[in-house]
């Protein structure tokens, strides 16, 4: 095995080379996944909290559905979004297929159930501890929501990271709705698939190492922030 075949050398060379193409791919990957997690969180955190606080007919069915959707195969999510956005589809006139926006939509669908279902669990646990005190203070269910979400923040950070892990790791959905177009919708995972199929295994592995490193860095950062906050606030 020569130096050129070693994936670690390849990864290192890619990073040190600061290749514009690579940078664009990395930037797009982060952009798509972070945006998807941001949108999914904005929707799923309140929904999860609401599911924890209110009892209504069909609540259990909804919880089971969300739990099941945590295991939604990315290709299926991708296919659904593809059908929606394709020219003949109901949202075809928006012309979103094979754009980063389509990739964000697909990842939101993948990440949303994870964040909603896990938020429901976390908030429900905290609610059982806080409920009497908060009601004694005169809070309505609606006003409890922000309190519980804020006080569950350390657990919820982990929940959001789980969502980010799902978004950054998946390839099936972004491949189908993005199309892996060079310079437009090519991200880390789709590049890895492409390079593997071309037989360029060192490059594929090198990209994989970079992806893993990035995800590790983001998780480390989140961990440090949460630990510091925990020390400060208990």
């Amino acid at each position, binding site marked *: 095995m020569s130096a050129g075949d070693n994936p670690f050398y390849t990864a290192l060379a890619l990073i040190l080379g600061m290749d514009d193409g690579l940078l664009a791919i990395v930037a797009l990957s982060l952009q798509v996944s972070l945006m998807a997690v941001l949108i999914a969180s904005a929707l799923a955190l309140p929904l999860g909290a609401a599911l924890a606080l209110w009892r209504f007919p069909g609540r259990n069915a909804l919880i089971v559905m969300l739990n099941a959707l945590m295991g939604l195969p990315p290709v299926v999510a991708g296919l659904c979004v593809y059908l929606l956005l394709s020219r003949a589809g109901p949202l075809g006139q928006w012309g979103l297929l094979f754009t980063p926006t389509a990739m964000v939509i697909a990842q939101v669908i993948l990440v949303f159930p994870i964040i909603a279902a896990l938020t429901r669990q976390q908030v429900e646990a905290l609610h059982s*501890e*806080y409920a*009497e*005190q908060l*009601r*004694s*203070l*005169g*809070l*309505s*269910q609606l*006003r409890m929501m922000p*309190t519980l979400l804020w*006080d569950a*923040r*350390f657990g919820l950070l982990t929940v959001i990271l789980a969502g980010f892990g799902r978004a950054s790791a998946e390839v099936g959905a972004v491949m189908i709705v993005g199309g892996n177009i060079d310079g437009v919708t090519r991200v880390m995972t789709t590049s890895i698939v492409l390079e593997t199929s071309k037989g360029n295994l060192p490059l594929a592995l090198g990209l994989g190492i970079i992806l893993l490193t990035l995800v590790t860095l983001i998780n480390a950062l989140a961990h440090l922030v949460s630990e510091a906050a925990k020390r*400060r*606030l*208990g």
Partner: protein
Amino acid sequence: MNVPLKTPSHSPAGHSTSSSVPALHFQQASFAHRGHRLLSPTSLTLSGCQRTLIMGPNGAGKSLLMRLAHGLLSPSSGHVTWEGAAPVQAMVFQRPVLLRRSVIDNLTYALAVQRVPRRERKALALQALEKFGLATLAKRPARVLSGGEQQRLTLARAWLLKPAVLFLDEPTSALDPAAIKAVEDAVNEFHHNSTRIVMTTHDLHQAKRLADDVLFMYSGQVLEHTSAEQFFDTPASAQARAFIRGELVW
């Protein structure tokens, strides 16, 4: 389940006056959970600005009675009603429930809930911390305080609400003697500021120190409601006599 509790109005004049504590009536109020009757139909009136101690063995229904009075639970049958408008109330629980925030933020939170203007919150909170000897702990996370400090913080939080009625559910059961004294002093301080006290305990000595009147409960029934003197000197029921002698009552 959701009985809206009245929120206090924050007048700078201080705590509510004794005349403003309305009477609370239980009218044949009972409570059952999953087919088990936990409180037999009970009729009683809590009036005036006294310190009422609810006593009885574990499982007698003391906490339940208090939650019905405070409005955290609704009776399965009968009624629990205040004469006129429900007064401002606060409750201190056996295990302090504190938010995962700093000591002072726990207090400013309670003020925010009561819609006290933002610029007034910090000063009020600091005053309360000072009063309860917690001023040096203001920036600490509330949940790393000792048990006694945590309970004092919940009392400080209740203090900020300026309640006409303060409910305390075995507030000292997990505390050491010094912390117990601090809580009892606080209870008397509330009382001096014309707050009606309703407190459960199974500590006879504590009841003797604090009680103006005693509600004795046994097995989901209120057996006695008399002045403290009468209860400790001439209890009417056999169960209360045994309880006061320190015998096990079943």
